[in-house]
């Protein structure tokens, strides 16, 4: 008696017509997630690479000039700008001039990285990328 009560539901449960559509939907969802994660990995690596390049070039200058000052800072920001990084939120500091030959010089740069994957959801999550490099001053100061 009860078996014949809901014949349409039994028919619906046995029907597998939408299976392909659901699989396709989940596949697209998964591929989109992989795509966004890939974009963020590339973006983060790119930011680190640009900061490292700028720090490395500036550190070479700091070794020759025995420290960091406003002109060195200008060189750093100019280099970053040429690399295509937004310099408005980048912060840099270094061992101030003038240290003696053989003493340590240090440069520290930080830049925020905003996760692109969350932008479609109108969310903004950012974290700091930090690069630090050290070297020895080369010039003798009389």
């Amino acid at each position, binding site marked *: 008696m009860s078996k014949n009560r809901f014949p349409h539901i039994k028919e619906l449960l046995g029907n597998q017509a939408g299976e392909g559509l659901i699989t396709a939907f989940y596949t697209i969802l998964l591929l989109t997630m992989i795509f966004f994660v890939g974009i963020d990995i590339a973006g983060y690596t790119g930011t680190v690479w640009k900061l490292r390049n700028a720090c490395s070039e500036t550190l*070479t200058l700091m070794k020759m000039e025995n420290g960091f000052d406003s002109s060195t800072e200008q060189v750093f920001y100019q280099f970053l700008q040429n690399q295509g990084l937004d310099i408005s939120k980048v912060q840099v500091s270094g061992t101030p001039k003038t240290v003696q*030959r*053989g003493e340590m010089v240090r440069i520290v740069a930080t830049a925020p990285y905003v996760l692109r994957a969350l932008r479609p959801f109108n969310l903004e999550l950012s974290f700091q990328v930090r690069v630090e490099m*050290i070297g020895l001053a080369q010039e003798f100061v009389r």
Partner: protein
Amino acid sequence: MKVPAWMMFGLLLAMLLMDVTTIMVVRSHMLRATEMALDAALVGGVNQSDRGRGRLYIDEGKGYDLAYTYFKSSLQLDSNLENNFLKKTRLRIQFIQNGEKPKVTAEVSTVVTAMTTKILGLEGVPVTVRGNRNYVGKFK
């Protein structure tokens, strides 16, 4: 029977992950120490009074001594150039005088102790780092 096998697999995977992380961190420290050693080789090797006369010559003995000192202290190594993670470390520094364009190259090779290699009965993972530095001073 299946659960212990999965647990063992998970443990091995965790150990492998820890070893990879250790090697990456050690390599990054080695790169930094090598950079410091190259700077120190130039600071120790270039004679300031010679430079004032427009000559550039690197004293290889003094350069190597200072590079060795900085390298050792950067990685907190003992007199055999070893610590808990690094064994059989070797620092090779080559000075290329090349007239007024002197250059220093460094090669650091070491064996990083890892958990998975211990299980396999091996000593560790060999890691080599290379770097070079041209002298970038100014003539006054």
